[in-house]
């Protein structure tokens, strides 16, 4: 760790065409790696399916007695599961970044005349693709188990934009975790928390049903406006009672803030951290 934060060189001056080509190569690398770890890949795809079935058919009956979603619990839980799966996907991204940093390959990349941002960009885009795949599965299984959104195409586009923004914010945050910690195992542990944050939001039950002490936390933490924006766009109403516009604005501000802070921190860390030692 002695060299961990020793400043090396700033990013090289580089033509945009080369930077684009480097980034394309790195994205291809990230996507290839995603499918090369069959266990992780299958887990990532099985998780949304299993959770959806669990929440709708096991917990759904009891939960919906309190939630009261018309047409069944599936009409409540879909945005929450999308966010939960994005948290899980972020963990995968953090581990991928930490694995890179603890192996010699980043040293090789950094000693080559390539755009250094391309290495992280490859991870982020691969993360986005993996998470969108998981999201598509949540939506498909949701529709199969009785989810009936009432959204027009414009609202669907809005919900999709919300998901993309949220996944990007989580992916950059995960990249930061992966860069800060020293090992893939630690990265996995650090992002484990992200999988529990949704439980303390309006993902599975409305914040108003929680213990008084938890209510303000659940109602105001960043995941809730993201979930409520999707819920409002798809179902026509939020679970907090706040206007859709209010939740959407809050969600956009949260995502933008996390995105800017995490992306700039990750880029700085990448330039200043050297691999492993």
């Amino acid at each position, binding site marked *: 760790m*002695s060299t961990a934060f020793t400043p090396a060189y700033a990013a090289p001056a580089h033509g945009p065409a080369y930077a684009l080509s*480097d980034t394309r190569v790195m994205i291809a*690398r990230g996507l290839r*790696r995603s499918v090369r770890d069959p266990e992780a890949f299958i887990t990532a795809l099985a998780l949304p399916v299993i959770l959806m079935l669990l929440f709708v058919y096991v917990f759904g009956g009891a939960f919906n007695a309190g939630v009261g979603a018309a047409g069944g619990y599936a009409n409540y839980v879909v945005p929450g599961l999308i966010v939960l799966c994005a948290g899980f996907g972020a963990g995968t991204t953090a581990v991928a970044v930490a694995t890179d940093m603890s192996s010699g390959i980043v*040293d090789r990349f*950094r*000693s080559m005349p390539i755009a250094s941002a391309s290495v992280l960009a490859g991870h982020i885009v691969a993360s986005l693709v993996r998470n969108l795949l998981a999201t598509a599965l949540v939506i498909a299984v949701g529709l199969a188990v009785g989810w009936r959104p009432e959204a027009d195409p414009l609202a669907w586009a809005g919900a999709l934009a919300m998901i993309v923004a949220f996944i990007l914010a989580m992916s950059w945050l995960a990249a930061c975790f992966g860069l800060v910690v020293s090992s893939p195992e630690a990265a996995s542990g650090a992002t484990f928390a992200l999988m529990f944050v949704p439980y303390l939001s309006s993902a599975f039950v409305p914040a108003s049903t929680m213990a008084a002490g938890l209510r303000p936390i659940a109602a105001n933490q960043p995941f809730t406006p993201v979930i409520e924006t999707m819920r409002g766009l798809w179902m026509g109403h939020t679970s907090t009672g706040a206007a859709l516009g209010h939740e959407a604005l809050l969600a956009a501000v949260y995502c933008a803030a996390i995105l800017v802070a995490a992306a700039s921190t990750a880029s700085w860390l990448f330039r200043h951290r050297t691999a492993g030692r």
Partner: protein
Amino acid sequence: MTYTVKATGISKAFRGKTVLDGVDLAVPAGRIAALLGPNGAGKTTLIRILATLLRPDAGSATVAGHDLLADPVGVRRSISLTGQYAAVDDMLTGEENLRMMARLRHRSPCAARGRATELLAAFDLADARGRLVKTYSGGMRRRLDLAVSLVARPELLVLDEPTTGLDPRSRERLWSAVRGLADDGVTVLLTTQYLAEAEQLADQVAVLHQGRIVAEGTASQLKAGLGADSLDEVFLALTAPADDAADSADGTADAGPSTARRAAPPTRRTADAVPSATRRTPEVTR
């Protein structure tokens, strides 16, 4: 004489511990130079500085004519680094690794594929081209590592302990690959703890100890200078601890602060021995 590497007064400290203490190094174009030293001597730190991965605290260097501090991108274009830990992607196949690196050297997809095929054949990996690298043996991985360094012909190939952990046969194959490159005019700078490796491969040997170059010359010059029969004796004489309190090399990585610098500076005995070796080799020193 043209020098591919010319470094002057390179110093580096980590949290107050001096790892490199004014290192001068000159490697003539087309030569194989070995940087020899025990664990913690600062070999990896020097390599990382010359490969633009670390900034020196003091000193200057040109690599293939590019100033290290003013033109790091120029340096990166001219070098290929094979680090101490195999720098290949375990989750890709051997061929994918080569194609990826060729694309990152901005070759066209078609040229990248062609180059990958050539290198797989040259490094005896054609049969394993479609297998994930994580299934490769240590020797195969090292050969791939070297092949990856050569997707574009570098002016300087930097190898940090290239044969550590390899069996004798794999080591021999790697040596012959390095010799072949030198025959093609590629300058090679390698670090090693193996004296046999330095003796077998290198045109010039620099012994790094406690952050300083304590001797340099050809292997035979170093032996003659110290009246030693083997490079082992030279090595032991030059890198002996200054006193009993200094612990010996213990297997930790280079540049680790705990072993990077021992209690005392090089002994007088060492300092006496050096000039006799270096004086005879004006063309490979400064």
